[in-house]
């Protein structure tokens, strides 16, 4: 059971792809200007991770070591292409906004890193789970960053959620600051870097606090 706990903890916190492994920064920084874009790309990345991890795990016994990397690349490229095609078919408006970055998921190092480091050594179920939680960890950071940038940059939260959830979702938009002029810096790329820096800093602060608590509680075992 603890294996699963580790998988979840690794994906969401301890080994989070965005704040610890620092992988996949290109889409992370480019698409996090609003919550809806962040969520869209996050879900797409998560799908690719689950599909590629599961496939890699399924074929791991048949792939000879010498050619495993090219095979992983093929698997990932296929998964991304299919998700891109499906997005064009079913979420066309969202595709128009984040389509370019969906193609870039192919180059998101998180995916090949998980294929190589985890899926090629573990069973299908664990690998899918790892893909899901790594993707979720990535998505959560992406959405937090998106919320931060949207809130400060536009003064709103959840604008244009209709792109993801259909026309009925307009009501989700929260205008936090009325007559807000916007704050350009957070919408532009530097804002993404600053935002991610703050998130990583916050995570480290929490980690240090937790560590301190543990060592305070057990002073005799702390070395």
């Amino acid at each position, binding site marked *: 059971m603890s294996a699963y706990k580790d998988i979840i903890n690794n994906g969401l916190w301890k080994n989070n792809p965005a704040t610890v492994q620092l992988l996949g920064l290109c889409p992370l920084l480019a698409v996090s*200007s609003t919550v809806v874009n962040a969520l869209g790309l996050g879900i797409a990345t998560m799908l690719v991770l689950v599909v590629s991890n599961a496939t890699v795990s399924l*074929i791991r016994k*048949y*792939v*000879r070591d*010498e*050619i495993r990397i*090219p*095979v992983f690349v*093929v*698997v990932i*490229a*296929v998964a991304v*292409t*299919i998700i891109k*095609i*499906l997005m*064009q*078919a*079913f979420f*066309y*408006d969202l595709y*128009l906004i984040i389509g370019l970055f969906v193609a870039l998921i192919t180059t998101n190092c998180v995916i090949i890193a998980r294929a190589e480091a985890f899926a090629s050594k573990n069973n299908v179920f664990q690998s899918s789970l790892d893909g899901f939680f790594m993707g979720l960890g990535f998505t959560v950071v992406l959405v937090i960053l998106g919320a931060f940038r949207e809130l400060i*940059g536009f003064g709103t939260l959840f604008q*244009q959620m209709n792109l993801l959830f259909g026309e009925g979702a307009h009501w989700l938009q929260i205008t936090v600051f009325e007559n807000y002029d*916007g704050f*350009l810096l957070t*919408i*532009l790329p530097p804002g993404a870097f600053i935002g991610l820096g703050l998130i990583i800093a916050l995570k480290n602060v929490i980690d240090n606090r937790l560590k301190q608590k543990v060592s305070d509680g057990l002073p005799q075992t702390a070395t």
Partner: protein
Amino acid sequence: MTSISKNMFINAVFLGIFTIAGTAIVAFTFEKTEQRIVDNKRDYKLRKLHELIPPDMHDNDLNTDTKIVRDALLARDADMTVYRARKNNKPVAAIIECIAPDGYSGKIRLLVAVNLDGSLAGVRVTEHLETPGLGDAIEANKSDWINIFEDKSLDKPEPRNWRVRRDGGEFDQITSATITSRAVVKVTYNVLEYFKVNQKSLFN
């Protein structure tokens, strides 16, 4: 066969099998969704056109009733599409594609809808590289600035007032994006002039 070339051969075959399988899956997905994607693209375009000319104003198919034109007033050295709206086979309005060459960071592509009487039905930006948060206020879903052109025409306001306020004209510029606003105002005026001269031939 030596063991190296045997290994190479086996690996190549394996890699080949995986590639073929992958390609087959992609091809299958594409085949199954192709029609839907084509429909999506067409619907999207039509929806954009209908923002300018509402569906009840015309009864022809805007997507197919088009004409390719080339004129320095619309764009430098590029073919532009004109979508023609008709009702009962009588011309109603034209949606003219154009490019403003002088945006803040390059070209701005627009659709300008002109009623038969020479008044503007509306303007929409379709492609641009203007600064996010400033110049992108020319997009209809970011701000309603672009609606300042509604009902305007060549003599309303008079030609010397067809400028942004900063230049002594009548149109409000977008704050901190005067160059962007200026480019859009200018090209819109040019399209109106183009329409006035070419109105007859446009609908043939």
